């Protein structure tokens, strides 16, 4: 059965996954008045539509960066070493929920969660074990940490120091995008305004002391996964970026000192051309924002450098092997869109954390695109396509309309406080669910070609003892520290948080004395309070 929205001659409108109308043919008329010099340029030049670098993948392939973490530091260290041996070129740490919320592993709220969705990190000792035998001046590490990013990053900095690596030689990324936590991912700790103060403290510290570090990965991924459309993902992410720039400038930083270290993170969903156009539009919009709105002079301030991840939400538990094909198409879209790094999901992620075999297949998918397909040989190969350019223009225009609406609310924090992006996403996700329900949007294995039985997948089994080992190690650590030093360092941190000093040096002192993540986060909770989401439904 064909969808009812299609007439016999197939001429009626189709829609993208985001509900954007898609015509059967695009012609030169769609680009009437379009000036390629203005709108496209060449890769590595304003407005960067075609790519942020002059040589793109001929110069260097994208970084293959698979997100990994489970159990204790030792468990994850083994997986990291395996992935590096398989040809992965960067590390990406997944933390468990207690770590994302700044709870120690023996906190009652952490029960059942330790090491489940990522690795458990309680103190510097765990961070040292996580990177044992991995030279931190040779790899770049991305860490998905937001509300407690300052604490986790300081642990990484001290772990590097202990390996004898200088901070100026370190490179990597902390996600550190707190705004999208309130909008979508919901792993917030502090209310938005103090969270922005921690953010600017991190950026200011990094600018001076860890100049090659990417201080934020402004993330659309979670916004999209929570159910937004492609253009909402684009608009809320870039508007979050504007908010961060404004706050850093207000904190006294110069735009060209910090903006080159901002990076972005987008979701790559099923709609192939819409996703390619989204990445192209993102680069053009950001370059213009940085030039026109913030008068950036440094060309590197204009670059929207992108990490991409294939869409977890597009995967199905039914007929899970179909997911490998979805991931391959999404990965291809990310590469055609000019991503700087890429995570490909594993086919079994709707059922749990990936097994070693499925994680390896996901990495191989990238390697096949990179080495066999020929796709990376030519930059922005879809540039100039009537369809892709038209779609890029339309996404840009709708995104700018969202900017106007959010500007009129007073900015992104104000928009979040009244629940604007949250409601937009809820509405979009419900409409998408209904479109699938009505068979207007087809998911193979769900509402077409559904089968009663599908081949089972195994799924990773997390060692039940990991949590007990983690808690035992934590108790031993607490017994063997210089207690008065820990107390003093935490008291100093509290004073700094209550005042206006940059809190990073105080966190570093706490970390060096093996204060736990929970102790540091609680200290800041006592000053900043905790965020509780209002009911926006």
């Amino acid at each position: 059965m064909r969808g009812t929205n299609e007439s016999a001659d197939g001429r009626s409108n189709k829609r993208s996954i985001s509900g954007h109308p898609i015509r059967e043919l695009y012609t030169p008329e769609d680009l009437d008045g379009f000036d390629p010099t203005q709108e496209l340029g060449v890769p590595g030049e304003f407005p960067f539509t075609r790519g942020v670098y002059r040589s793109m993948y001929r110069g260097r392939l994208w970084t293959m960066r698979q997100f990994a973490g489970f159990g204790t530091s030792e468990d994850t260290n083994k997986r990291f070493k395996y992935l590096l041996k398989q040809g992965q070129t960067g590390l990406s740490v997944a933390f468990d929920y207690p770590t994302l919320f700044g709870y120690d592993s023996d906190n009652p709220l952490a029960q059942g969660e330790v090491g489940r969705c990522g690795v458990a990190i309680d103190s510097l000792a765990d961070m040292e074990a996580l990177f044992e035998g991995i030279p931190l001046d040779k790899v770049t590490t991305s860490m998905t940490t937001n509300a407690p990013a300052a604490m986790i990053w300081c642990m990484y900095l001290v772990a590097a120091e202990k390996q004898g690596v200088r901070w100026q030689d370190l490179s990597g990324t902390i996600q550190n995008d707190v705004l999208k936590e309130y909008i979508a991912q919901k792993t917030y700790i502090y209310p938005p305004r103090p969270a922005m103060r921690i953010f600017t403290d991190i950026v200011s510290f990094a600018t001076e002391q860890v100049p090659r570090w990417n201080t934020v990965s402004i993330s659309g991924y979670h916004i999209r996964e929570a159910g937004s459309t492609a253009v909402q993902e684009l608009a809320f992410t870039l508007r979050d970026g504007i908010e961060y720039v404004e706050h850093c400038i207000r904190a006294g930083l110069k735009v060209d000192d910090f903006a080159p270290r901002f990076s972005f993170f987008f979701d790559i969903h099923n709609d192939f051309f819409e996703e390619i156009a989204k990445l192209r539009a993102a680069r053009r919009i950001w370059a213009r924002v940085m030039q026109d709105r913030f008068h950036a002079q440094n060309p590197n301030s204009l670059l929207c450098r992108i990490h991409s991840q294939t869409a977890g939400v597009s995967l199905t538990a039914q007929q899970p092997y179909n997911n490998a094909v979805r991931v391959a198409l999404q990965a291809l879209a990310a590469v055609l869109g000019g991503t700087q790094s890429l995570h490909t999901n594993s086919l079994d992620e709707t059922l749990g954390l990936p097994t070693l075999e499925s994680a390896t297949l996901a990495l191989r998918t990238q390697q096949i695109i990179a080495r066999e397909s020929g796709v990376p040989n030519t930059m922005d190969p879809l540039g100039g396509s009537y369809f892709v350019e038209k779609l890029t223009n339309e996404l840009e225009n709708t995104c700018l309309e969202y900017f106007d609406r959010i500007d009129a609310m007073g900015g992104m924090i104000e928009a979040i406080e009244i629940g604007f992006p949250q409601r937009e996403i809820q509405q979009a996700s419900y409409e998408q669910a209904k479109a699938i329900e009505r068979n207007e949007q087809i998911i193979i294995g769900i509402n077409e070609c559904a089968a009663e039985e599908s081949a089972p997948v195994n799924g990773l089994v997390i060692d039940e003892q990991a949590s007990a080992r983690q808690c035992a190690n934590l108790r031993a650590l607490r017994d063997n520290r210089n207690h008065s030093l820990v107390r003093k360092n935490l008291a100093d941190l509290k004073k700094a948080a209550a005042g206006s000093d940059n809190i990073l040096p105080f966190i570093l002192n706490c970390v060096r004395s093996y204060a736990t993540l929970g102790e540091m986060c609680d200290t800041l909770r006592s000053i900043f309070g905790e965020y509780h989401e209002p009911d926006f439904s």
Partner: protein
Amino acid sequence: MEEKKIRVLVAKPGLDGHDRGAKVIARALRDAGMEVIYTGLRQTPEQIVIAALQEDVDAVGLSILSGAHMHLFPRIMNLLQENKMNDVLVFAGGIIPDRDVSKLKEIGISEIFPPGSSLQGIVNFVQSHVR
């Protein structure tokens, strides 16, 4: 006389913030004419059972994507029993491996709906299984 509306508590145990599924289900059940109470994020088993008691619900839908279900679901089921709420229909959804499904059914969870489950299927299930 109008039939009494089915009352459902949609609850998010565990620390994960993935509330898309829970909110979509809550709305689908509401659109199907049920009274739906959504707990919000990060509820402990105790908080969920207290809410179920206070709201006098016919059914509880649990949504979890953090992997802690084998720890939290048995606690919720025990607390429901302790509070003599054996007749409340409990169903669940989220990232739940196949190997855990039979164990969860043994402790009294009527059905597990994985990602990709049909909304109408869940609505029908609740309507036909509430006692």
